């Protein structure tokens, strides 16, 4: 009995040791743009959209797991592998696309911060400069461990949404059953787009790049693969656990009272009359926190990817002198995105729209690479996709690719 307990304790310790990368990546998928999308979906479709969340959780878990497995078995990032296996020409296309799409995402996060900060009467310009400054100092000066802890603490703040949802007084029974049993789903064109938007904000090209690089940067050995896979599933669950409350918070208030929501960022103010002051403030603080998380993680994923592309040192543990390109690119992205956000004449809505389309174009390519890599015996050895898992992975990828293409085609038509 004692032996059994110590064994369990040992396992838990190992799990805690590897814990971090997958959860952080998954949480960052709920960046400010993500929160906005969930709020909008909840306000528009009520509990019925929760069914999509269930599918998204599965898809996220499977796709992230492939990334983690590739990273831990090969010791290389997605950027490394694309460059090494597909050559410069294809890489340049993928990386240029990633840079632009990530820039758009960071801008969207800054925009959300801008809108929300006015709710708290924070001076916009100094606040945004402050965020850029603080983010850069933490990334450039802090090592992997400090940064991981900051991200995890930031992830903890998502609890704000749980409180907001509780204050909104939802119909919990209906909300919970809607996750597994589709209820009141009306398959309109709008619902399909809503579902795709929820999918698209959770499963992203940068997320796939980031999880690879971030796992490698943690330097976990391959024998801990099982634990890291477990964490991946946990992270996917946790993310959508919080997404559930975001949707519930707006579904119980705005959807129930049929209040239309123009943009997701305004959700914090809009729920105030129904859920009360505290819920509104927490929702707003949640968006600021999510914005911060998105800005740092997405910029970091660009920096990782390009360090891999050029083959230079790209690690949070590297000193500034060695990681000049890595840290420089991180700062560059922050400054440009913050600058664009501050220009009043720029249509942030359009930027977000085009970013989603570009992500939609990139995703199929990235899933092509992921599937190719995880099925490569020479590369993955015994960790190659098992056949049943492969069907599942291919199936998931096809769902994601169809959804992505749907967005692209729709945006082309609407132009």
């Amino acid at each position, binding site marked *: 009995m004692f032996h059994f307990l110590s064994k369990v304790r040992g396992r838990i310790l190992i799990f805690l040791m590897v814990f971090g990368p997958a959860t952080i990546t998954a949480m960052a998928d709920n960046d400010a743009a993500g929160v906005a999308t969930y709020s909008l979906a909840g306000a528009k479709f009520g509990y019925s959209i929760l069914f999509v969340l269930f599918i998204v959780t599965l898809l996220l878990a499977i796709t992230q797991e492939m990334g983690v497995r590739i990273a831990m078995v090969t010791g290389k990032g997605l950027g490394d592998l694309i460059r*090494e296996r597909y050559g*410069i*020409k294809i*890489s340049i296309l993928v990386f240029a696309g990633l840079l632009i799409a990530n820039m758009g995402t960071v801008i969207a996060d800054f925009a959300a911060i801008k809108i929300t900060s006015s709710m708290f009467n924070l001076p916009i310009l100094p606040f945004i400069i402050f965020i850029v400054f603080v983010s850069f100092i933490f990334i450039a000066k802090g090592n992997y461990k400090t940064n991981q802890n900051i991200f995890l603490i930031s992830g903890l703040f998502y609890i704000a949404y749980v409180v907001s949802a509780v204050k909104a007084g939802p119909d919990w029974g209906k909300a919970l059953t809607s996750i597994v049993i589709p209820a009141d789903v009306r398959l309109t064109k709008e619902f399909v787009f809503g579902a795709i938007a929820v999918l698209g904000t959770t499963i992203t090209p940068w997320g796939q790049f980031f999880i690879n690089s971030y796992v490698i940067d943690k330097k976990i050995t391959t024998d801990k693969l099982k634990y890291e896979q477990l964490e991946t599933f946990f992270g996917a669950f946790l993310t959508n656990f919080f997404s559930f409350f975001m949707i519930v918070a707006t579904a119980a208030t705005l959807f129930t009272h049929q209040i239309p929501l123009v943009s997701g960022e305004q959700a914090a103010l809009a729920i105030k009359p129904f859920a009360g002051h505290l819920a509104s403030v927490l929702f707003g603080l949640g968006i600021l926190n999510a914005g911060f998380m998105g800005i740092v993680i997405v910029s970091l994923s660009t920096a990782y990817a390009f360090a891999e592309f050029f083959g230079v040192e790209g690690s949070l543990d590297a000193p500034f002198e060695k990681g000049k390109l890595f840290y420089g690119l991180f700062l560059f992205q922050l400054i440009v995105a913050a600058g664009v956000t501050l220009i009043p004449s720029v249509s942030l809505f359009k930027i977000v729209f085009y970013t989603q389309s570009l992500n939609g174009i990139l995703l199929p390519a990235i899933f092509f690479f992921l599937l190719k890599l995880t099925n490569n015996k020479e590369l993955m050895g015994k960790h190659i996709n098992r056949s049943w898992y492969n069907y599942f992975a291919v199936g998931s990828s096809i769902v994601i690719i169809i959804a992505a293409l749907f967005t692209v085609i729709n945006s082309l038509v609407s132009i």
Partner: protein
Amino acid sequence: MAYCNKRFLVYHKSMLYFSELRAKRVQTEDGIQIGILDDLIFLALETARITKAVIKSKNNSNIIIPADAIKKINGHITIQKNYTGTEVGLNELYVLRNILDKQIIDLKGNKLVRVNDVAIQDKPFLYIAGVDIGLLGILRSLGLESLFHRLSNFWFIKHNTQFLSWADIQPLELAQGKVKLNVTQEKLRGLHPADLADYLETTNIRNISKIIDLLGKEYASEVVSELNPNYQITLLRKLGDEKAVKIISLMDPDEAVDVLLQFSPRRRQLILEKMDETKRREIENLLRFSETSIGPYLNMEFIAVKPENIVRQIIDQIKKETGDIGDLNCIYVTNKNDLLIGVFNLHELLLQSPDTPVYRFMIQNVTVTHLNSPANTVLRTMIKYHLYELPVVDAAKKMIGIVKRDDIGELFLDRI
């Protein structure tokens, strides 16, 4: 070209690049189309001789032919009429699969950069000369190199191919999917100034001034001080006063004096006036001694301690004060009036316990020299007593500086 294997690599016309060869049409001498070049196979040894070529034929199958069958490379690749297909052999690797786009790591495992292109020489036979690690390599693969050259000429942008010689790469590691170097990052960055100077002396003065222009000031000054005097003076003239002043200011004072002595007194004065106060006084001091026989070899980089100092204090003082001194052999002991009263070397220092005062172990019977001692006498003394350096004192035994065997030995270098 062979010498300049580390950092500087000027665009070399006769070099072939893999990116330019790849996807070239392959045909026989009598004009029969075989396919396109897909990959090259080489021996992973110290000389990376290219032994075979992989051709992708029209029906998408791969044909491997011996490199000897290649007759001509221009717009397309011409091969022998009756070539025979072959297989990959032992110790053979592929350019595309094993080198191109791979991560380059140094001896310590630091990630440096990626292989952006592979450079190939065709004389006396096809072999891999090295790898291109610069931006130009990326542009070349994208077919944008000539556009870049045109634009950069238009905007007067300077660009150099960055190149790593095959000699820096460990061929045996390539099979593991890594391009591992046999040097460390630091060493790769710092090509020794003397080596570069030697190389520069083989080219003309215009090239020298061009390359010096590209270097950081500090590194440039080290390189200039290693150049032979004839080059130094021409070069510094060519660089203009402003730059010459900067470079001379960064040199070690005794080397700066050597250089300045070659200018006319009027020009010398002009340059000195533009230098900052402390540096100028130091150099003027040395210049004054330069008319004496020992003066030109005088070195001011020495450390003097007091007899009552204890070993621990001296070690601290050495750490603090001698970080920028080239090499430290002896520690001199002077009294309150700066008169030389003793000496000891580093080994003697280390043998003492931390609390021992200097006067307990210093050698009081110091061999000295004077500014007017003939240089060959001084050298003879040094050789006789196995001394690396001698203190130079004035009539009152006040310490002026030191003279090193290496420096004074140069005087006799021509006679050997």
